[in-house]
């Protein structure tokens, strides 16, 4: 089991390094862009953006699971997904802003996708603020799961209505159609996506493990401290 884990981690490292090298060395500059050399960033930006939304779905899924089962493990998983979602949202926004500065002339344009990712970050921020505001563990899990499930339909609505209100600068339907992306870009982008997804799963599992250990530590602490405290009183 352990050798498989180590082999997996090495494989992820080599894979990501190889794809990164390919993005800079093998990919041709994208002609038709204002600055063709910087278009390589798309290969890193799009997977981050997709994983942000995947993390949001995972968070909603485990929140729903928590409300059904009241299993603390699902709460840890929902929290881990939200934290990773925030991380990838920041990465997607940073890479996107850099590219927007080169391509569209300004780092921020209130494009529907820019707006929706900021709103996702606001939801995550509110989620973390709520978790910080509730002391009791099961109550915190319950309330944050309920909030995640309230925010989910609102976000779906927002992502659906925004393009009707503001014009988009992002291309549409490039990822899945044959004519959208140059084959070299398509291969590199989805390879990076595969690598990043593996990193996502790895970090997710680590985060859940850490949280499990923390709660076990707290249980031990209580088990040790309680007799001492009651002993003092008696």
């Amino acid at each position, binding site marked *: 089991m352990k050798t498989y884990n180590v082999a997996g981690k090495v494989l992820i490292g080599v894979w990501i390094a190889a794809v990164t090298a390919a993005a800079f060395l093998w990919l041709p500059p994208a002609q038709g862009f204002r600055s063709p050399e910087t278009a390589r960033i798309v290969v890193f930006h799009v997977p981050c953006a997709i994983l942000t939304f995947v993390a949001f779905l995972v968070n909603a899924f485990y929140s729903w699971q928590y409300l059904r089962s009241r299993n603390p493990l699902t709460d840890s998983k929902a929290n881990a997904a939200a934290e990773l979602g925030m991380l990838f949202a920041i990465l997607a926004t940073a890479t996107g802003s850099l590219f927007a500065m080169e391509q569209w002339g300004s780092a921020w344009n209130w494009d529907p996708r820019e707006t929706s990712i900021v709103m996702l970050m606001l939801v995550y921020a509110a989620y973390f603020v709520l978790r910080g505001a509730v002391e009791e563990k099961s109550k915190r899990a319950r309330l944050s799961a309920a909030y995640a499930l309230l925010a989910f339909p*609102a976000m779906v609505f927002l992502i659906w209505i925004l393009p*009707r209100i503001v014009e988009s600068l992002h291309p549409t339907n490039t990822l899945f159609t044959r004519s959208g992306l140059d084959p070299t870009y398509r291969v590199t982008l989805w390879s990076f996506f595969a690598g990043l997804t593996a990193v996502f799963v790895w970090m997710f599992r680590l985060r859940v493990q850490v949280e499990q250990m923390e709660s076990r530590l707290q249980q031990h602490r209580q088990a040790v401290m309680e007799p001492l405290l009651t002993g003092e009183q008696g």
Partner: protein
Amino acid sequence: MTPEKWTTGSRSSSWVYEALAVFAKDWLLELRTRVAIGAVVLFAVTSVVAAGFALAPPSGVAAEVKAALLWVVLFFAAVAGLSRAFVVEEETRTADALRLTVSPTGVLVGKLAFNTVLMWALCAMTVPLYMLLLEAPARHTTLLLTIVLVGSFALACATTAVGAIVAKASTRGALFGVLSFPVALPPLLVCIHGTKAAWLSDNAWQAAMGDLQVLVGFILVIVPASLLVFEHIWSE
């Protein structure tokens, strides 16, 4: 009625009466103290007057800005008072009594009705004053009225369950605003869009019809979602 009865039967017919009872009780208490309505209306009036000072007619501010500002004022005024419905139950320690006597659906629907009427009262006082002080174009009044009525109902729908979450948290301070903004954003954006249409475009009904449809759709999605999660927020 005992808690066992809610889960076994007679629930579907009784939650309407329960909701009406909660609604009547909340308004009775509100009219005695006038805490929520005082907070909401005073906040709205002060911000409208402040906006009126800053953007009085000669300043030539575009109607787009006025439409956005109107809804910003309404939203933050709502934030000042809409969590009250649930927070007051925790503060006076009456939440347990309510939990014992009324089903969760009855509580949520009653509180939602309370918040909706509170929003409508807020709009009835704020919107005319706003239009007067900022000289907003008085066109397509029926459309504006429809957007304000449906939009403020949608805002109440979005924030009522969030208020229940906030009431359970230990530090309530600014939490309600932080938590309700992302949930209330879709109706807020649509309301701004629709208000712009009512003030600016010639065939306003046609321009705003999509917005009204989205508002109704939002209400039809967020209310069932609130009902589904509310049981988990409310019951200890």
